């Protein structure tokens, strides 16, 4: 028994800011102080509050140290762990209230969250199967195999109302029912862990923080549909997730929780990892399966659906990581428990990766039906630097931008579609007034043009044409007719593309046109970028009366466009400078260098 447990976050965010070194230093320091038998150091998965990483929590007190540095460790060990005096100076300041330290669950970031899929993330050591078992791990698999029929399992999933968390929101139970209904000598269960949506990291956090939950749920799915083999298709860009999944698979084999004759019931199930190689289209189910087969990950027309002909032409069920992460608890706590959370048509919780212009970047899990305002303003802590909220982008390259007027819409699958966006996998990027919406649409189109697999013409050529028009608009070469033409092309691409990638690719353009048409018009008619992002539409000017004549900008200018004038502003000693707009390349170096805010852009 240890008297104290120190949890150090080993998720990608915190690891990137050196948390593994912190854990090691902590162990060394504890040894030095002779405390290594009394204090246990555990590397866990993501706590969610990535903006404050690296994160370290000391139990039983629950002291939440944020932005920990290696240099802080000796002090924390000496003061807190040896002498029992919490180093309040280094705590997450929101947990400090005058003299007392309040529970993490009462802070704004955690208070409104409900952790179902993430319940073990930041709690257990993901590399130890015993930790998972201690949290009722594999109990659901045991229950399913020994007490439930296949039909009962599927019925439970149907009753729970769980819908796929990968984007489209198809009912999971229905998917299983279809796959179960098809007889075949071999069926497969696949897990989509190819989280390609840029700016989303929900699935990665589950894989890194609680890999066994995915294995357990896949085995349950295997039992329900009658499959004995599973594949996890995971991004190679997630090295920590890959490593922990492999460890988890090996441990589960060792414990007899994967392999032959699981729980002595005669049920066999095995899981293999397949690494994705960076193709966004592989998030589409038919493309993913083609990629597991080792080929170019191109989608194919449906029907036949994967439940009939999937991987290697056999009936297959494919679910997303977060979907799986809900399943063991639905089995243990019952369908009614799960269905009691959320809205009428969207049950349970949803994990969002909150990023962009927001105070608390991180991972949040909230009941369906929570409003965007609660997520952005309360949990997320609002926009930094006193800037104004402009839009929230959900659904990544397939989704859209939600403007301030819809901040109070309860978030669920159907409401998001109604306001022109979509749930997607859960990326939620906040944008403030300094983000140009035309530029964002262009950013996503660059992404889809890159990622379009090229198989069908509407997507391959259509997205390229869309991008060209957006480029013209951001360069000030657009016309009002072009905007209309663009809109038409969007509907054409949506209606005619083969797979989800093409069908949703125009969404970023359509939703920004719907809510921010005036910005497009400003680019086209006034030749101005209201947010000051599109370089070709900017002009840098020196406000002569503020210029101190220090000449710093003129020395920084890479093209010699800034020269001295003979105008000496009132009260100043030296003559002011000016910018020759015919030479200016709009690099912004002058504005960055000016110490007197004398240079403006617009």
């Amino acid at each position: 028994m240890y008297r104290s447990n120190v949890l150090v976050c080993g998720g990608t965010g915190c690891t990137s800011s050196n948390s593994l070194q912190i854990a090691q230093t902590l162990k060394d320091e504890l040894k030095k102080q002779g405390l290594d038998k009394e204090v246990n150091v555990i590397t866990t998965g993501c706590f969610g509050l990535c903006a404050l990483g690296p994160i370290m929590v000391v139990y039983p007190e629950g002291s939440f140290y944020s932005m920990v540095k290696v240099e802080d460790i000796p002090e924390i060990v000496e003061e807190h762990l040896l002498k029992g005096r919490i180093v309040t100076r280094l705590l997450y300041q929101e947990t400090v209230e005058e003299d007392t330290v309040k529970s993490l669950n009462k802070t704004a970031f955690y208070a409104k969250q409900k952790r179902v899929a993430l319940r073990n993330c930041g709690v257990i050591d993901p590399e130890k199967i015993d930790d998972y078992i201690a949290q009722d791990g594999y109990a659901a698999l045991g229950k399913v195999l020994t007490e439930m029929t296949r039909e009962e399992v599927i019925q439970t999933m149907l009753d729970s109302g769980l819908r796929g968390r990968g984007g489209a929101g198809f009912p999971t139970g229905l998917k299983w029912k279809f796959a179960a209904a098809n007889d075949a000598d071999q069926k497969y269960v696949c897990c989509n862990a190819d989280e390609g949506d840029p700016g989303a990291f929900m699935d990665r956090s589950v894989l890194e923080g609680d890999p066994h939950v995915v294995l357990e749920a896949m085995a349950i799915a295997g039992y329900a549909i009658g499959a004995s083999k599973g594949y996890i298709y995971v991004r190679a860009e997630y090295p920590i997730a890959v490593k922990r999944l492999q460890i988890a698979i090996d441990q589960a084999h060792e414990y007899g929780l994967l392999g032959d004759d699981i729980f002595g019931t005669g049920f066999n199930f095995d899981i293999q990892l397949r690494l994705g190689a960076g193709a966004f289209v592989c998030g589409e189910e038919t493309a993913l399966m083609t990629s597991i087969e080792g080929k170019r990950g191109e989608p194919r027309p449906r029907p036949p659906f994967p439940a009939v002909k999937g991987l290697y032409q056999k009936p297959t069920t494919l679910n997303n990581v977060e979907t799986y992460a809900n399943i063991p608890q639905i089995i243990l706590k019952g369908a009614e428990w799960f269905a009691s959370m959320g809205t009428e048509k969207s049950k349970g919780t949803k994990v969002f990766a909150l990023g962009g212009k927001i105070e608390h970047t991180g991972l949040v899990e909230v009941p369906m039906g929570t409003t965007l305002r609660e997520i952005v303003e309360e949990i997320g802590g609002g926009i930094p630097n006193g800037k104004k909220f402009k839009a929230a982008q959900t659904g990544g390259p397939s989704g859209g931008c939600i403007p301030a007027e819809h901040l109070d819409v309860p978030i669920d699958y159907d409401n998001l579609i109604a306001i022109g966006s979509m749930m997607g996998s859960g990326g939620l990027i906040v944008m403030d007034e300094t983000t140009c919406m035309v530029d964002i649409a262009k950013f996503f189109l660059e992404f889809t043009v890159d990622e379009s697999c090229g198989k069908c013409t509407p997507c391959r050529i259509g997205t390229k044409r869309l991008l060209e028009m957006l480029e013209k608009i951001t360069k000030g070469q657009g016309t009002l007719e072009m905007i209309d033409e663009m809109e038409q092309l969007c509907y054409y691409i949506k209606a005619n593309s083969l797979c989800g990638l093409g069908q949703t690719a125009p969404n970023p353009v359509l939703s920004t046109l719907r809510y921010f048409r005036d910005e497009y018009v400003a680019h086209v008619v006034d030749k101005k970028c209201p947010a000051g992002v599109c370089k070709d539409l900017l002009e840098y000017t020196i406000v002569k009366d503020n210029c101190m004549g220090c000449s710093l900008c003129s020395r920084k200018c890479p093209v010699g466009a800034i020269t001295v004038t003979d105008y000496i502003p009132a009260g100043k000693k030296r003559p002011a400078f000016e910018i020759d707009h015919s030479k200016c390349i709009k690099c912004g170096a002058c504005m960055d260098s000016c110490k007197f805010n004398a240079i403006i852009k617009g």
Partner: protein
Amino acid sequence: MQKKISSIPFQGTPEQEAQLKEVIARHKDDPGAVMPVLQEAQDIYGYLPIEVQTMIAEGLSVPVDEVYGVSTFYSQFALSPKGKYNVSVCLGTACYVKGSGDVLNKLSEELGIEAEECTNDGQFSLTACRCIGACGLAPVITINDDVYGRLTTDQIPAIIAKYKEA
């Protein structure tokens, strides 16, 4: 995505070839072996020149066009060698709205190469990557295994200088 194909002559060693042969032998009977073998081959050689792809095709008894089709499809497979230091700029949405586009431009200016290129001395290569998932640190770049987060463009010259000296 358009791939840049290197014109640098292939310089594989017999040791690398032996390693590759071992990988091929291990996967030969697996269904869908092309991708895992390409991934391991890239670990061995650092990139996938046509010579390596031909060896894989022969070893696995699949047409070389199938191997080439796969290697050109996925962005992770590199057909050009990477520099000693590979600078990778995250262009995920969270990084982008926090200015990673400017970071990429600054790096390109500092190194004198465009994205997906390698400097002539083989020291630096520059790539634009999709989300690495460290959105809390946006904007983020990685140089080999080192991660630099919460970057501003004026920090770039000092970071690059560190590697130039090393």
